[in-house]
């Protein structure tokens, strides 16, 4: 398999890959849930706690200054990662879900009213369904859903038919976590803007595989999690266009997000701090920069090309498993292979692969409506990252043969 990356060297950067699980060397194929972390990220986290742990933005002592500088450096690094025009448009969150809730609860509550329509798609994660349902219930808005075809691609004609002057918001997933489908988001955004609707992209899956340019996309909001890009858990970012963020009310109240507090009235801090109440997740924010640097050192196009070759290899290889059906056959997809096997429950597949040291995700992947669309209760999902190998895919295939033998 040709690629520009030294996969053996890359694997050495991830200490966890040496773990022995149920007596076998770990094969980690649950990267769409969370990726593993390179040593450089782990060192950044412990380095912060060992050498400059301090609360940021207010302390005048040296540790606080160093921590603040590293924290804000990370923000600038994330700004660059998304090609956002300003660092003020990068809001630190707990993750993708938190960012979506922030937009629904602030922009949504302020600007949407009864009878307005919100469009999502049939392949959304629950985290891009429920916040909008909650909003619609509260405000009397109507939730509309873009349907998909049997390959797991959005029906763009149907999307256009849904767009009217009542459409005020479109919130869709950039890349599907269950299917791997890469959605034509640029077109989705352009069409939404034609009717004056704002657009949020759920970038949880996309950000580890694709280069994201929020200016080129012209999206209004972009929410993502760092733990899916080789970074730490518990942190993400929300990009929002400055004029929108400025027009939105604060989300949570507390320290950091205020300018001045009296018992009569509080004035709020400027962007981005207006949306960052309380002590943030300092260590993980700082470590996120190192994850992005790591990705950049390898080169996102190199990573994408290699992951695509793994997907191609796996897609061919699973054909030898009788009764296996791939769910999600979009022409444009990332390295996610979701499948069902005739007559075998996905949980049984997961349990027996785990016994062989192979970690896949089984279940509905928090996309129950999507599973209903395919008339299944769940799938088994192998998702590949840059440290995976074709030899590991071979082990998955052997593992599946064993599953079939045991359950046959």
């Amino acid at each position, binding site marked *: 398999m040709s690629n520009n990356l030294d996969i053996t060297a890359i694997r050495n950067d991830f200490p966890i890959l040496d773990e022995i699980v149920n007596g076998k060397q770990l094969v980690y194929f649950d990267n769409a849930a969370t990726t593993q972390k390179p040593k450089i990220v782990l060192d950044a986290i412990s380095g912060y706690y060992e050498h400059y742990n301090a609360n940021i933005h207010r302390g005048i002592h040296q540790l606080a200054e160093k921590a603040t500088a590293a924290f804000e450096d990370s923000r600038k690094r994330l700004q660059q990662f998304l090609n956002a025009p300003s660092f003020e448009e990068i809001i630190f969150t707990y993750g993708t879900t938190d960012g979506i809730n922030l937009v629904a609860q602030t922009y949504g509550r302020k600007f949407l009213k009864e009878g307005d329509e919100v469009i999502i798609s049939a392949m959304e994660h629950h985290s891009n369904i429920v916040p909008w349902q909650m909003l619609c219930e509260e405000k009397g808005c109507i939730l509309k859903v873009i349907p998909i075809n049997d390959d797991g691609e959005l029906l763009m004609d149907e999307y256009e038919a849904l767009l009217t002057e009542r459409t005020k918001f479109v919130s869709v997933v950039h890349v599907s976590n269950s299917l791997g489908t890469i959605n034509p988001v640029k077109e989705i955004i352009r069409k939404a803007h034609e009717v004056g609707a704002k657009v949020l992209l759920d970038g949880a899956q996309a950000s580890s595989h694709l280069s994201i340019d929020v200016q080129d996309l012209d999206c209004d909001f972009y929410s993502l999690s760092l733990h899916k890009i080789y970074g730490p858990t518990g942190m993400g970012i929300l990009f929002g266009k400055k004029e929108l963020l400025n027009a939105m009310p604060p989300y949570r109240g507390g320290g950091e997000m205020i300018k001045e507090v009296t018992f009569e009235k509080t004035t709020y801090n400027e962007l981005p701090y207006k949306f960052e109440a309380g002590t943030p997740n300092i260590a993980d924010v700082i470590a996120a920069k190192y994850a992005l640097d790591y990705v950049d050192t390898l080169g996102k196009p190199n990573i994408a090309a290699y992951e695509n070759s793994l997907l191609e290899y796996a897609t061919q290889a699973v054909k030898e498993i009788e009764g296996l059906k791939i769910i999600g056959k979009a022409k444009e997809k990332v390295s996610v292979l979701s499948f069902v096997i005739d007559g075998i*429950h*996905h949980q049984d597949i997961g349990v027996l692969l785990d016994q062989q040291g192979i970690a896949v995700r089984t*279940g509905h992947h928090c996309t129950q409506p999507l599973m209903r669309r395919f008339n299944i209760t769940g799938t088994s999902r192998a998702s590949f990252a840059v440290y995976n190998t074709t030899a590991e895919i071979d082990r998955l295939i052997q593992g599946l043969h064993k599953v079939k033998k*045991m359950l046959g």
Partner: protein
Amino acid sequence: MTINETQDELISDFELFDDWESKYEYIIDLGKQFPPLQEQFKTEENIIKGCQSKVWLNAYMDGDLLKFEADSDAIIVRGLVSMLVKVLSGHTPEEIASADLYFMEKIGLHQHLAQTRSNGLLSMLKQMKAYGFAYQGRTVNSEN
């Protein structure tokens, strides 16, 4: 046989297996042999929802004994369910409510009880004990 005698019997059954394959093949066999729950009892009321697999549990008094029937849509869970039913079904509600279940841990299957969201087994066990508490002091002569 008492609850603990059945547990000990299961533990010694599993001592025969020295690798994971034979252990899981045995559980799969138990799942296959376990009589399916009649469709009429696969109700919303009897369902114990796990994140991934469904478990149904039906309980009834037979004389002064509390009996269970159960099912699952995943075969390994079905095998594990059959063991829980084997251990607890047909004892008095008092015995069931106060039972100390140690066999899963001894067999090395405790991870299946920890994953409440993935298979509903722990919820099922809690539900069985809850029936034990609820039926204490009751005697019913006809089934269901």
